[in-house]
Every structure is written in C-alpha cells, then in structure tokens.
C-alpha cells in the first residue's frame, strides 16, 4: 500500500520527532513491563539465564500468601483515606489562598499572606521522599526524644508509638504521605481555580453567595476536572508508598507486617529472596490493581465539561 504524499508529509514530520522518545519509551518502559509478564510465568532467580516456565504456579502461590493479602488490604485502606484527605485539605487551602480572602478593590483574592503559604505548602514536595523519611524518623521517634513526642510530653502526654503500634503504624505513614502530598495538590488546584474566569466568582459573590456556597456550588464544580486528575494521581500513589515504608517502618513493613505494601514485598522477594519470577507475579498483580483503579475512577467521575 502506498502512502499518499500529503499524509506522509504531515505524519512523517511528526513521526520523525517522535521516533527518539518513542524508542526510549519502548526500550526502557514497555519492554521491561512485558518482560515482567513473561518472568511471572517462570521460576527465574534473577542471576542465571537458565529458568523454566512454571505456568501460573507463581500466581497460585501468591493467592495463598498471607503477606500478599496483608499488603493488598493496606493498599485498599490507603486508597480509601489518602486521596480523600489529601484532596480535601488541598482544596480547602487552595480555596483560601485564591478566593477565601473576600473582595478587595472589587476583586476576589486569597487570605492575607497567601503568596507565602503557597510556597510553604509546596516545600515538602521539593524534598526527595528519602529526605522526608529521614526527617520523620526524628519526628516520629517512639521514645520521649522524638520531636512529636517531646512536644506531647510538654502537655503531659506519654510518648506515642507512632510507628511501633501495629494498629497505628499504617495511619502514621499515611499521615506522612498526606503531609508530603498536599502541597502539590494545592498548587494544582490553585492553577485550576486560576483558569476559571474571575467574573464567575464575582457574580456569585455579588449575588450574595457566602464562602461556603462559593466553594461547594461554584468552585468545586468548576475545578472538578482537576480534582479528578488529582484523584487518579493519588490513587496511584496509594499503590506505592515504598520509600516511606522502607525508611520509617519497623524492620521494613513491620511490626508484624502491619505496614507492608506491595512494592516493598516485590523488592524484598526479588532482591532479598532472589525469587524474580514470583516477584514479577506480584508486579503483574499490582499493574492490574492500578489499571483497574484508574479505569474505574475515570469512569465513575466522568462529568460534562463546562465551557466558559
């Protein structure tokens, strides 16, 4: 089949630009992912080119593995809490920063010092997650020398085992993740709010809408698309949390597996147990979980786009 000249001219030009990034993407992303699917069906130990195909054995073992289910359960809990809380806090802050200050000289503006807050909220996002982990090691130290516990000690509260109480540890980690994540979403939602024409808010304001109405009736529906994007990001983040668990939890995932997550188990299975096949099977399971989540979210939260 001959490709007509105009088509070639149009798409050939675009393709020429795409060829390098596409090649990189295929070599470094697509092919390793496909290889994980292949490895998941083998008993590879990762250090020898010899391995055998074992069919779905790895998946059978996986579904009978208590630690795997503990990790899945943790992801579901994180998935319920992390996005909602982060988005709620971020929306609240970005509303205050952009529109919450009332009308000045006929224009809606943020609360006093909102420029400063914007920068401060974004700070944690600038820090590498490993640094966040090290910082929180000091903050959450379980004895009275911990920063948080020594503050509590001033008001007479006994040290709290933030990361050593199996019932509390996971929520502490989620708290750290929220602390780190909020800033980014404040900036994201601020951008979303900035793209909405000011007249809309001002009109509502003139019509007598209070801050509450302004937020729930006007702002939220208008930035819904952005919120939806944030939701997908955070949902995917809920399937990660590797670095925080790795740096903060007792013995990586403890106490008693109460904080373990799939990426950590994948890492441990591959690089401590040298079971690359089994580890890949976990990875495949994770891929399906993330894909399912993303597809569901996009479907459920689909709304009509509002044209300004």
């Amino acid at each position, binding site marked *: 089949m001959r490709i007509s000249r105009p088509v070639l001219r149009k798409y050939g030009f675009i393709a020429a630009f795409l060829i390098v990034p596409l090649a990189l993407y295929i070599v470094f992303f697509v092919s390793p992912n496909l290889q994980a699917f292949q490895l998941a069906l083998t008993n590879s130990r990762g250090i020898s080119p010899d391995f055998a195909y074992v069919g779905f054995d790895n998946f059978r073992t996986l579904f009978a593995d208590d630690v795997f289910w503990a990790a899945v359960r943790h992801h579901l809990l994180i998935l319920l809490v992390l996005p909602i809380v982060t988005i709620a806090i971020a929306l609240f802050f970005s509303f205050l920063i952009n529109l919450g200050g009332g009308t000045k000289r006929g224009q809606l503006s943020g609360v006093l010092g909102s420029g400063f807050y914007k920068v401060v909220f974004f700070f944690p996002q600038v820090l590498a997650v490993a640094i966040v982990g090290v910082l929180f090691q000091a903050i959450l130290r*379980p*004895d009275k020398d911990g920063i948080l516990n020594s503050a509590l000690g001033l008001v007479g509260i006994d040290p709290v085992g933030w990361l050593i109480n199996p019932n509390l540890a996971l929520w502490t980690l989620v708290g750290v993740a929220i602390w780190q994540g909020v800033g980014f979403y404040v900036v994201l939602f601020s951008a979303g709010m900035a793209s909405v024409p000011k007249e809309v808010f001002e009109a509502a304001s003139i019509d007598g809408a209070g801050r509450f109405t302004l937020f729930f009736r006007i702002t939220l529906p208008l930035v819904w698309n952005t919120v939806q994007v944030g939701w997908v990001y955070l949902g995917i983040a809920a399937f990660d949390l590797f670095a925080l668990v790795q740096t903060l939890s007792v013995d990586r995932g403890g*106490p008693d597996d109460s904080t373990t997550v799939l990426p950590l188990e994948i890492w441990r299975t591959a690089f401590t*147990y040298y079971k690359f096949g089994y580890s890949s099977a976990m990875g495949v399971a994770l891929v399906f979980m993330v894909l399912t989540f993303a597809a569901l979210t996009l479907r459920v939260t689909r709304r009509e786009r509002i044209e300004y």
Partner: protein
Amino acid sequence: MTITPSEITRRQMMRRIGLTALVAGPAAGLLSSCATSGGGTSAAPSTAAASTGGASSASNPFGVKPDAPLEVVIFKGGYSDEYATQAHEPLFNKEFPKATIKHQGIQTIGTTLTPRFASGDVPDVVNNSGTDNLDGGALIGAGQLLDLTPLFDAPSIDDPSKKVRDTIVPGTIESGMGGDPAKPYTLNYVYTAYGLWYDANLFQKENWAPPKTFDEFKSLAEKIKAKNITPYAYAGKNASYYQYWMILISAAKIGGNQILLDIDNLKDGAWTADAVKQAATAWAEIGKFMDKSYEGLIHTEVQTQQNQGKVAMYPSGSWLENEQAKDTPSTFAYAIAATPSVTAADQMPYEAVRAAAGEGYVVPSKAKNAPGGLEYLRVMLSKEGAKDFTEKTKSLTVVLDSTEGLTLSPGLTSVAAVQKAAGTNVVTYSQFEGWYKELETELRKQTNALMFGRISADEFCTKMQAAADKTKADSSIPKQTRNV
C-alpha cells in the same frame, strides 16, 4: 571508600556464610549456580611442594624456595594494609631474606584479580574481602583455590610439637570450608565474639556483676530498673537479629550445637524443640524489662543510649567497641559477658560463647609460589603475626593466646578473657541466615513480636516451625545441609 572494621566484620561474616554454603553440596543454591564450571575439578595440587621443588624441613614444612618471589594482595579497607607491609611481610622476609615480596594493597579485589585468575597469572596470597571481592564459591568450583589442609596440619611456628590447627580458635577451619567434598579453602583470620555488652565501670560502681543464670539476670534487671536505667535493650527497627542471635545462643547452650544444626538443616520440629522453647521463654521474660519504644529505634540509637548510661546491657558482637568509638565517653569501659545459662542442666557451661571467624585469606592453586603462600599464612597464624595484627587493627585474631603483652582496649581485653574462658565451648554460627532469607525475615519479625510481648514463646516456636516447614516444602529454594 572507607569501611569501619565493624562493618567488615559483619559483612565478612555474611560472606563466610555464603562460602560455607558450598559445604552443602550439589544443591548449593545461588553461589553454585554462578560456579558454572562445576564441582568435579578438584585439581588443586595436593602439596604444592612437589611443583616448585624446594626442600621441605621442620622449619620449612611446605618446602618454600628461599629466593622465590612472593606476591601478596591485601584488601585495603577498614583494617588498612599496614599489618601486612609492616608486620606479616617483614616476618616472612625474616625467614626468607632472599625472597622479594611484591605487595599490593587495593580495594577492588574482584575487579583487579578476576582477569588474572582467568589468565592464570595469579598472586600467591589474596585477602579476599570488601564489597568488590572475588566469588569464593565460583573460584572453588573452578579449582582455582588451594586446599589449605597442609597449612592446618603443619607444625606451628611457636611450638613445632603442635599443629597449626590446634593453635587457633575451634571452628575456624570449618568456617572456611567450601566445595563438594568440603575442604578448607579459606583462612578466616579475624575473631568475633557475641554476647552481652555492658559498661564495666558502671557495673563496678553499682556493684553489679554480669548474670550467670537467667534468675540472676532477672534479679539484676530489677536492681538496674530501680536505678532508672533500662536493664536490657536491643534495636527492633533494624537489628532484631542481634536479639535472635541471643535466643539461638541460649538454645544451643541448653541443647547443644545440634539444636542449631537441626535448625540449619530444616529438620522437622527443630524450632519446637524444648531447648528453643526454653530459650524463647527465658528471653521473653527479659523483654518485659524493655520499653516498647526500643522496637522503633535503630542500633546506633540504642548503642548511644548505652554510652549515655541509659541502657545497662546490650546484645552485640565484638565490633561494637570500634563502632561506638566516637560516642563512647572516656568513663565508659566496654566489656562483654557470655549469655546466662537458662537451666541447671544446660549442655554447655555458662562460659560458652558464640564465636565466628571472618576476613578471608586464600592461596590460589595456580600460584607460582604456592608453598610461599602457605608459609605466609603460617606466619600470620604465629603468635607474633597475630599480635601485630591486633596491635595494628584493634581486632582480635583466631590465634589462641596471642594477646600477651599487648595493651588492649577494655572491650578487646574482655573479649580475649571470654575467649579464653570458653575454651572449646564454642556456640556455632547459624547458616540459615544466609541460606534461607525468607526464614530469616520471618525470624526477625517473630523475634520482635516475642520480645515486645505480642506473642508467647509457644507461638514463637510454632510460627517459626511453620516458616521452616514452608521453606522446606518450597521447591524453588535450593536446600543445603551441614554436619559441623
């Protein structure tokens, strides 16, 4: 790359475990799968003397040619290489003044020497250590290392009526075994002891004595607690293995080393044996004296607390004093005590300690001056050689009674005393830690659960047995066995 001796000791030990894994035989897992050249080539010359034609005598048991050059490669890490250039090599030269010694102190043992092994142009002594080291299992598999049995059977330099094997800490030779059938290919030279560490000055001031039984342990703990000091603690966050070492040592003291061999060999019911149960019960009692917060601290945090006088006893190995050197106040004097006896009917006496040898030295089988290489190791194993090493590196060697006349640090003095008191009562090192990582991970988890009061000793044993059974049933994990 600077590495503290303590790190080396531990890493060394881990590698030693890897090496000994090959004792196991055909199913020897990861390492042997690298050693693709296969087992059958035990082409190591039986006695190297024949090949170079020097005359052997009582003082020259390997028949070293007096003028044959010797090439020594030393890992220049935490121990540096001065102990070789300023002690061992001059000692060798004293015996053979005509021999020229070519010395190389490097950090990249593996990268530098792999091509030389491939071409057959190898040094005569290699200190195979550091992160970039040679794969000992692969070398053994390829017949590249010399069987050191003649060395251990040779007369000792200090007392020709004794064999070298009788002048070193029991277990040293076994720790360097590899291949199938197992032979000693590696000389592990540095001695590490494990036990309870305390501040001798504090104990003296308070008139406390290290406990010899668990009853004494508990009553001492009460006294220490009354002084507002935590009697005993370990770091649950990253060093729960320090604690399971103690439980395993206690189990071995109760039931003998066979208990630990059974655990390594995944024998049915090894973890539910009475000795293990009794050890776990005894230690769980001690765990009650520990604040819950220790589960969330890392080893250096707890060690610093001990230096500050907030923790009385801490489980660790003899690298501890060096590791904490910067944080130890001058009033603090490290001392080690053996773990207390659990029952009156313990198979091993209170004095028994777990000791392990690390930091490997090998002689390549294709070495041009292999007899010289063996002789060099024999010099290292002389009292003078060992003493010089300890002086230069602040670490003890496996050579018995080699610290006379040395001014040792308080910690080393106490390790030497414990080593002497233990004699042949040595608790063996557990190999499953390196062989079966899933079992080891489970043990860390359950040790914290036991010591911080979330499970009973019975549950601890049942859960560990279940994990061991799971490992045993898992066909994807290559199995290994040991007899000594």
